[in-house]
């Protein structure tokens, strides 16, 4: 039971009847989706839970390889096989007053759900800083706000085709001292840039990012999804993206080591 929506710029939003996942998922958690049936890839692919209704869950992605190609081919009536919710989500309890979400590209995925959750917990003002390569690749602002006046979206594009011309992280600096929480999701370079802005004195109490790593299982048994965490100075300590994360405090990640790793894609 699936519906597939093609957004501008190649973004795709798939909504499927997954009542148990919908009931259990907290913002920032992900599901392992099977792509294709027997002939499809051996391993599942991880996707953030982008939205839930009582019976359904939505995921946002674009086609980057075989798995996402098969997901994009789903049609109404197909069954989506999902395992989850998995991993640790965002800390929402300490957020108060104003918070900011920083999204880069497909990093938008966890934020609609996070925004709803924060608002339902009484967070007054939420600013979503949403960046992408170009205007048509921006996830639509109203999918973050869902008509809620307490949520604002500020956009940035690398090519200046909409909103701020430049990196989305450039929009963060002026607000970093006034918010109680920063949540980020996007490319590693963007996350590292966010991390440098939230490590000084007067930084927000909550500063977290959702990270990615190639996954074997998604539930902590294969030890495949290692991410470099800050160690004791003798090199990084490997944490697991799927079970220590995917959401991690920005200060616990060894950003230099992370940026030095080969790209996660294998194309």
């Amino acid at each position, binding site marked *: 039971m699936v519906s597939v929506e093609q957004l501008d710029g190649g973004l795709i939003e798939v909504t499927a009847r997954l009542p148990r996942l919908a009931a259990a998922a907290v913002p920032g958690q992900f599901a392992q989706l*099977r792509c294709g049936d027997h002939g499809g*890839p*051996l*391993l*599942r692919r991880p996707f953030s839970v982008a939205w839930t209704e009582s019976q359904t869950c939505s995921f946002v992605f674009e086609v980057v390889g075989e798995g996402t190609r098969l997901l994009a081919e789903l049609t109404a009536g197909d069954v989506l096989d999902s*395992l989850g919710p998995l991993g640790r989500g965002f800390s929402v309890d300490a957020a108060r007053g104003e918070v900011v979400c920083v999204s880069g590209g497909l990093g938008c995925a966890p934020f609609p759900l996070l925004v709803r959750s924060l608002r339902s917990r009484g967070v007054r003002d939420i600013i979503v800083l949403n960046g992408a390569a170009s205007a048509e690749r921006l996830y639509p602002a109203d999918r973050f706000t869902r008509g809620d006046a307490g949520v604002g979206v500020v956009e940035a594009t690398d090519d200046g085709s909409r909103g701020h011309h430049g990196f989305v992280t450039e929009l963060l600096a002026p607000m970093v001292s006034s918010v109680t929480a920063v949540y980020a999701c996007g490319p590693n370079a963007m996350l590292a840039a966010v991390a440098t802005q939230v490590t000084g004195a007067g930084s927000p109490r909550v500063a977290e990012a959702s990270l990615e*790593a*190639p*996954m*074997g*299982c*998604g*539930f*902590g*048994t*294969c*030890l*495949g*999804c*290692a*991410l*470099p965490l800050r160690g004791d100075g003798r090199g990084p*300590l*490997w944490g697991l993206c799927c*079970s220590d994360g995917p959401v991690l405090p920005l200060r616990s990640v060894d950003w230099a080591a992370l940026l030095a*790793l*080969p*790209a*996660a894609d*294998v*194309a």
Partner: protein
Amino acid sequence: MSSAGLRVDLGRGLVLPNPVGLASGTAGYGFELAQLIDLDRLGALYTKGTTRLPREGNPPPRVAETERGMLNSIGLHNPGVDWVAEHYAPLFAAWRIPVVVNVAGAEISDYMHCARHLDGVEGVAGVELNISCPNIAHGLDFGRDAAGAARLVDAVRAVTGRHVMVKLSPNVTDIAAVARAVEGAGADSVSAVNTYVGMKIHRASGRPVLPQGTGGLSGPAIHPLALAAVAEVRAAVRIPVVAAGGIDDVATAFDFFAVGADAIQVGTASFADPTTALRVLDGLAERAAAGRIPARWGTTAVGSP
């Protein structure tokens, strides 16, 4: 589905309630899977490869997919044998599923150390000597040399009264010779196969995806290779043979019984579907109930290939 009557006695105290186990490195130490499935219905849990000292493992990427297979280069990321004996074993002791600790090392003394520390520890049903891990320096030496493997088993045999299973490497000219050597040195059983040395290239850079260059290939792609290897091992030794390699349903598991395996291990398939081993077990129980499993899981005479 009842699994009564599926008991497998592998010798020296290692009795599996049924032949369906979870392969080393694909089920951690069981704690995560216990949240997802009823672990206690299964026949055995073979833990992540455990070493003398804790190990951080290799830098990522540690896994990469191939055609119907996956490469891994985890590098024996584990908390060390002391931690396992002190903190995990008491939890294992509360489970019905026998837990066999997979042990790895670089020197014979490493294996001896681990076996000694696990000997007599409640909750540890036996050790599986991983002499075939392709992902650490020297990790393959014992597995690739029959005489070396025999020396290793001999030394470990001297320090433990527990069941000693030896996990064979398929990356050898003559797996039967290694199997015979470890049998001669006192191994109680052998398991086969570990992963095959493989590589994947990152197309944009032309460099290997895995930082170590190579990794271990597992999954359906290796099933036909593992079948040939297990058949060869079966023909070479009298001790029990525990089979692994590309099992993803009851049919692929049964293929191993057809070549004479005594028990099986489900590996990579658990990643995509953590219930795979339970499905295999249910299928097995169904066939057993229908009388479709002859003595010793229907061993057919398969000549040494």
